[in-house]
């Protein structure tokens, strides 16, 4: 067998193995997307009811709360960036990071100092490599986040927003995550969680035209709001974590699908080349035999004479 042919054969074998791996990863990701979507759907009733309650308190009372009132001049903002722990998901992480950087630039343009909080090893690695400061980081649960994880993330953020700005607290809380639009579309979005603008919350609640009843607050509107807002933030972060996880799996599935397709194309091309190489070997061998035979015939003919 010719040297060229052997090289092609070896490459075909290696690409075939890679293709099998990417195919398996594609199928794993596909099953995880479904699971993640189901989790998003399961968390929706809680989020909906909570949004309703927040709207009810916000519109039904004149309570002022640090979490709903805008600071006159905001000087510090926190940005929570949700990335994944693992790559192999196409542009998933770089899109989220880019969105966070744009938001950071915009906030700094408005004269605000920005604290960055990051979820996911990819984002942490990106910031560490550039030696940028990370206020706090969490890793290890991005593939299947639980509500406890969301609480863990929300805790320091709520604390930061409740602290006076002068003492190292923040005035605003923004979140950057990848919204799961469909299997094919996931977009990195940023939104402001706090201070809460009630109009926005009201616009999000599903029953827009419904007139909210005059609630009786137990024990008081302030206490209810006090307890409600941190839960609201947690539930929003939980939802963002879940969507981000679903998006990551969808992105992985797509990346692995195109990797599998590319491997298929590569195998096809290499097979053609290997066939041509084999054919060339055979042709050469035949021409060598023919050449040798005729040289031999010429030689014997010469000696006969």
């Amino acid at each position, binding site marked *: 067998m010719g040297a060229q042919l052997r090289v092609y054969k070896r490459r075909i074998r290696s690409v075939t193995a890679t293709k099998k791996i990417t195919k398996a990863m594609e199928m794993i990701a596909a099953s995880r997307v479904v699971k993640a979507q189901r989790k998003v759907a399961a968390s929706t009733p809680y989020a909906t*009811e909570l949004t309703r*309650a927040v709207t009810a308190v916000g519109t039904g009372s004149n309570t002022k709360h640090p979490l709903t009132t805008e600071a006159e001049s905001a000087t510090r903002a926190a940005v929570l960036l949700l990335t994944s722990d693992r790559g192999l998901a196409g542009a998933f992480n770089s899109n989220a990071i880019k969105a966070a950087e744009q938001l950071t630039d915009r906030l700094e343009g408005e004269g605000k100092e920005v604290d960055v909080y990051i979820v996911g090893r990819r984002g942490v690695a990106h910031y560490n490599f550039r030696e940028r400061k990370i206020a706090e980081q969490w890793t290890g649960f991005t593939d299947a986040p*639980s509500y406890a994880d969301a609480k863990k993330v929300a805790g320091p953020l709520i604390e930061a927003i409740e602290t006076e700005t002068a003492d190292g607290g923040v005035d605003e809380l923004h979140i950057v995550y990848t919204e799961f639009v469909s299997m094919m579309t996931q977009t990195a979005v940023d939104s402001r969680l706090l201070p809460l603008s009630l109009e926005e919350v009201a616009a999000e609640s599903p029953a827009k035209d419904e007139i909210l009843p*005059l609630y*009786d607050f*137990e*024990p008081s509107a302030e206490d*209810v709001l006090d307890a*409600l807002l941190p*839960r609201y933030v947690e539930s929003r972060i939980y939802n963002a974590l879940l969507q981000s996880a679903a998006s990551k799996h969808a992105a992985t599935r797509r990346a692995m699908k195109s990797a599998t397709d590319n491997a298929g194309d590569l195998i096809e091309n290499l097979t053609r080349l290997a066939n041509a190489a084999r054919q060339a070997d055979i042709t050469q061998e035949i021409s060598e035999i023919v050449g040798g035979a005729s040289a031999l015939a010429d030689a014997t003919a010469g000696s006969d004479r």
Partner: protein
Amino acid sequence: MAAELHVELVAADRSVWSGEATLVVARTASGDIGVMPGHQPLLGVLESGPVTIRTSEGGTVVAAVHGGFISFADNKLSLLAEIAELSDEIDVQSAERELERAKAEGDAFAERRADVRLRAVAAR
């Protein structure tokens, strides 16, 4: 037929129970509160504790609820909790073990949680 109210008991990650009921008793920050059909609109903060739902079929559903909210309007009652478990789902032995462990470790949060679970089972 007696008047009914619609109850949705939802935890952060799932919907735990929903159905028609005639009475719901829950523990708010200022004491136990009972809600019957036609109650005035209410929004309250729940304490950790058992919630009792008397269903319209005459049965009783007890759930262990750890923090959360109760909101009632238009004969629809929603109980929101970070963690909620029906008493049928609670494994008494594991809850007791949990309580022992929490006491030993001095973990107040876990201790309260296990205690609430046991009380919910006891109220069944």
